[in-house]
């Protein structure tokens, strides 16, 4: 028998056995959603598989009962005993078909129209206690069932539990007379082999598939025990061999040799019981995709890479269904029809790629397609439709966040429910299943270009080949998979470790390789290893390559990764531990952990899971901005937004002159006043001092500081306001309390006439009036001086409502600058309000937002914004304001 078919039979029989029990439970607890969704999923699986194996009769029955279950799940239909009986009946019908299928490898001819009609009638809400009525009443049944089926189903209440065999018999019997009516079914088969009355009837429960007996299910604990015992045996064998080696002549030599071999084989065998190549789970897919392509009239090329990657059996079982669903989804929803593809300039044949590989203690499975990607708009509509989020919430979400909604229950963007997919059974189940085994699933989709799902599963039980190294007198294992090469480094050899400011690096084939000292990382020993001969393990995590300095390298060994004790799980540098051949315990290093400890976030450099997570994070922390940290005077470090600073200079204090009692320095052919932050600052000769140069037009001002510490990207949230002149307040930056300085204050210190003077540069006498709408006091404080300095008359308000209030009270502005993300009325709504119906409908509106993708731009334009500027981009803002104002003036 076809492998596929036999597997299907085993699986379906199991599923049906589960369903029998679950349905009865459902009848007792009709309101248990998890029960219901489990039942739904099982029936869905049966239906799906039938479809691909070309079993139309089974599929039809399963589809009809799935319809009913779908209505239950959506709460549109109540779970009634009648309904449950009907579904049980359809299960029995499926069972009897399966039985024939097992014998003849073909579906018995026949037709379950009556049953299907009744199921459909039920799904459409025309529940009827008597079976006869609905069939007659059903309008759509194309060929009306010749004889409405009488009784056994009708009595609704009792015999559900005992049901299986009775209705089974009934269904099969009733099938026979209908057989001729079956339209395209293989007619000869029908007459030749009229579905045999189920032997089940005779043999009691013997209807059990005999196939099921070819495999047995073994408790995983038992396998685990076996495994432990075998490991023990291996260790004993190793000890014996060790003893044997020390004895020249021994009568034990031959039997021990045999023991050796048997043990090895036993070990391999036991391991095999747990490990399977992932290709096993994929075996069904080519067929599935082929049929799918046929059904959907698409051309699909399925590529499978890394099929030999081994996976723990239990894990494999759990990801099998999710994988099938995902491939199905990719083919069904992801790929376009050939014509559409050609129109988009893609090749006619769509590609679905499955890729499995090990990466740093994890197994990564990627399912990608080059189809149309996730349609953001469609997802949004669906979100709104299902009430999962409000429009305002959506507006503030990034594309990634919106895409995540496909993992919510009951979510499917497919316009219609096909027999293939699109019942929303997919992604939420996928996600739950993967998370159950401690994995993660990430999604990356570009509209028009395709979608990639990345599943990351911990390698808890997988066997890996590991390199054993020594460092600080301890041995460690490094998964071979992330090791690229080994380099010996000594002062007298070709390669030697060089240091930049204490940071070790290695020249390797004309590239500098960053090095990590394992000894230092693990806080082993004294770290004084400069002159010793060392080895460098060149490791790769994602695209990041780095070297790990170790003392010695032993050989590689096959190890079974065991999780570390719970009290040690927080140490990220270890992915597990294991027992080596000599019986000692050894920690397994996690290259990912080392990479992130060494400063390089592994995910940041490659574009899979971590990057997506990072983007998400970036989108969430939209207030992040580059800040210049420096020290000046006493107290906390100080910070100023980097965007305000034009240049950093190091000024020779000997060149400082005094002009009008103020220190100045010649800078780029002009005099630049110097303003110290520390009021007690004195010009000290023969020293140099860092200066932050603020420039505006042809003027510049130097802010004298003591030391420039760093430039950090951080979320700036001024937590404590202050009355001190020149300071905006304190914020936590880079984990330290930091004073945020008010640049505007120092600007006026340098040029008391700064503001007045600035206006001269405008030909217009009148100051242009700018209305600034932003909920963040920080940005109001930041932008008000900035805009004032640039010659605008700025009015700042903290909400759209307040702004509209100004409109009503008769204020006029030349331009309005508004934030997008604001509590209450968002910037988009504000723009609509302004454009819709107010005195301001012709006032140019500039949006200020941290999201500045083309899509955001479009959205802003649609809402009525004239222009869109990324927050923190000071030059762009000034330029845009100038542009906008001159344009409107030109137009007026």
């Amino acid at each position, binding site marked *: 028998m076809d492998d596929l078919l036999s597997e299907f039979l085993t699986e379906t029989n199991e599923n049906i056995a589960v369903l029998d029990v679950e349905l009865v439970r459902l009848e007792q607890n009709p309101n248990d959603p998890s029960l219901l969704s489990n039942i739904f999923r099982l029936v869905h699986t049966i239906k799906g598989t039938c479809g691909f194996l070309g079993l139309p009769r089974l599929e039809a029955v399963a589809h009809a009962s799935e319809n009913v279950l779908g209505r239950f799940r959506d709460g549109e239909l109540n779970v009634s005993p009648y309904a449950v009986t009907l579904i049980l009946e359809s299960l029995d019908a499926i069972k009897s078909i399966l039985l024939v299928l097992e014998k003849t490898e073909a579906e018995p001819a026949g037709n379950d129209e009556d049953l299907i009609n009744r199921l459909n009638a039920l799904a459409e809400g025309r529940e009827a206690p008597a079976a006869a009525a609905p069939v007659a009443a059903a309008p759509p049944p194309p060929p009306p069932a010749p004889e409405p089926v009488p009784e056994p189903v009708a009595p609704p209440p009792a015999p559900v539990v005992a049901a299986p065999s009775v209705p089974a018999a009934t269904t099969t019997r009733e099938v026979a007379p209908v057989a001729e009516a079956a339209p395209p079914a293989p007619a000869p088969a029908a007459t030749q082999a009229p579905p045999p009355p189920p032997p089940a009837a005779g043999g009691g429960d013997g209807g059990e598939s005999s196939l099921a007996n070819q495999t047995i299910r073994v408790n995983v604990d038992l396998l685990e025990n076996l495994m432990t015992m075998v490991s023990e045996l291996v260790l004993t064998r190793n000890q014996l061999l060790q003893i044997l080696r020390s004895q020249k002549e021994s009568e034990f030599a031959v039997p021990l040799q045999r023991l050796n071999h048997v043990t090895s084989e036993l070990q391999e065998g036991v391991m095999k019981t747990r490990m399977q190549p992932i290709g096993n789970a994929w075996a069904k897919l080519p067929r599935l995709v082929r049929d799918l392509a046929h059904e959907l009239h698409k051309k699909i090329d399925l590529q499978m890479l890394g099929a030999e990657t081994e996976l723990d059996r239990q894990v494999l079982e759990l990801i099998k269904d999710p994988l099938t669903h995902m491939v199905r989804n990719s083919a069904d929803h992801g790929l376009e029809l050939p014509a559409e593809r050609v129109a988009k300039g893609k090749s006619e044949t769509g590609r679905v790629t499955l890729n499995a590989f090990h990466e740093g203690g994890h197994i990564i499975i990627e399912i990608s397609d080059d189809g149309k990607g996730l349609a953001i708009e469609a997802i949004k509509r669906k979100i709104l439709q299902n009430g999962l989020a409000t429009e305002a919430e959506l507006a503030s979400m990034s594309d990634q966040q919106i895409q995540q909604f496909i993992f919510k229950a009951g979510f499917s963007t497919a316009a219609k429910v096909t027999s293939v997919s699109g019942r929303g059974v997919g992604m939420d189940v996928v996600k739950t299943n993967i998370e159950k085994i401690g994995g993660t699933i990430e999604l990356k989709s570009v509209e028009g270009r395709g979608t990639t799902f990345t599943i990351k599963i911990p390698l808890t039980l997988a066997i890996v080949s590991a390199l054993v190294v020594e460092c600080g007198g301890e041995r460690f294992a490094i998964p071979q998979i992330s090791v690229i090469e080994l380099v010996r480094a000594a002062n007298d050899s070709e390669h030697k470790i060089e240091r930049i400011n204490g940071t070790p690096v290695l020249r390797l084939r004309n590239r500098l390789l960053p090095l990590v000292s394992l000894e230092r990382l693990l806080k082993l020993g004294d770290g004084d290893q400069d002159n010793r001969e060392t080895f460098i393990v060149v490791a790769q995590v994602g695209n990041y390559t780095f070297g790990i300095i170790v003392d010695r390298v032993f050989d590689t060994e096959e190890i079974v990764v065991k999780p570390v004790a719970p*009290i040690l799980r927080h140490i990220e540098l270890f992915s597990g531990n294991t027992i080596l051949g000599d019986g000692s315990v050894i920690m397994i290093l996690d290259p990912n952990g080392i990479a992130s400890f060494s400063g390089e976030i592994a995910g940041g450099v490659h574009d899979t899971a971590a990057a997506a997570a990072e983007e998400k994070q970036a989108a969430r922390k939209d207030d992040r901005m580059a800040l210049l940290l420096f020290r000046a005077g006493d107290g906390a470090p100080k910070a100023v937004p980097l965007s305000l600073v034009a240049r950093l200079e190091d000024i020779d204090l000997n060149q400082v002159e005094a002009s009008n009692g103020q220190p100045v320095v010649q800078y780029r052919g002009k005099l630049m006043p110097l303003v110290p932050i520390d009021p007690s600052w004195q010009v000290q000769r023969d020293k140099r001092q860092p200066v932050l140069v603020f420039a505006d037009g042809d003027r510049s001002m130097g802010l004298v500081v003591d030391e420039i510490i760093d430039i950090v990207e951080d979320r700036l949230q001024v937590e404590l306001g202050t009355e001190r002149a020149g300071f905006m307040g304190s914020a936590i930056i880079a984990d330290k309390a930091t004073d945020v300085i008010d640049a505007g204050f120092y600007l006026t210190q340098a040029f008391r006439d700064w503001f007045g003077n600035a206006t001269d540069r405008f030909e217009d006498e009148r100051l242009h009036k700018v209305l600034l709408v932003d909920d963040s006091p920080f940005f109001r404080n930041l932008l008000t001086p900035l805009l004032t300095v640039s010659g605008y008359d700025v009015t700042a308000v903290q909400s759209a409502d307040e702004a509209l209030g100004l409109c009503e009270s008769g204020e006029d502005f030349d331009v309005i600058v508004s934030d997008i993300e604001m509590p209450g009325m968002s910037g988009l709504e504000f723009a609509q309000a302004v454009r819709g119906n107010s005195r301001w409908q012709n006032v140019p509106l500039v949006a200020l937002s941290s999201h500045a993708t083309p899509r955001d731009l479009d959205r802003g334009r649609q809402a009525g914004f004239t222009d869109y500027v990324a927050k923190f981009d000071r030059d762009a803002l000034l330029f845009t304001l100038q542009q906008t104002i001159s344009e409107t003036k030109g137009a007026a």
Partner: protein
Amino acid sequence: MSTNLPAKRTASTEVAVVKNEDFVTMTIADQVFGIPVLQVQDVLGPQRITRIPLAPPEVAGSLNLRGRIVTAIDVRLRLGLPPRAADKPGMSIVVDHKGELYSLMVDSVGEVLSLTSDDFERQPSTMDARWREVSTGIYRLRENLLVVLDVSRLLNFANTEAA
């Protein structure tokens, strides 16, 4: 009537409580400790222990016990005592805690004692807070006092630290 019944029952359970429980005894710095015998899986002599870098100081390392990896805890450090002198080998008691094996390193392991709850008492309130945290009470023995160790609390330190 129905109110009397429970009262009787509590009385009878109290009687039942006065029964023997078996403890594996051990000594650390001349103090006798006990662990309920049912929790003890094994008693080991000196073992080869793999150090675990970056682990909490009380974690001495891990060792291989018949193919299972056992995390060794130095009870001396856990109790705030100085480490054992290098020349004294010490012994270990292996306990099972939530499916994981831990080896409690002590100075020496003694006999199994069957103790009656008559001799049981709560820890004196003046006892060191660290000791009180990891013990459930004291048994008065004829010669000396036995401190009953609570394994789960003894192993709880890393969880709180990690959190």
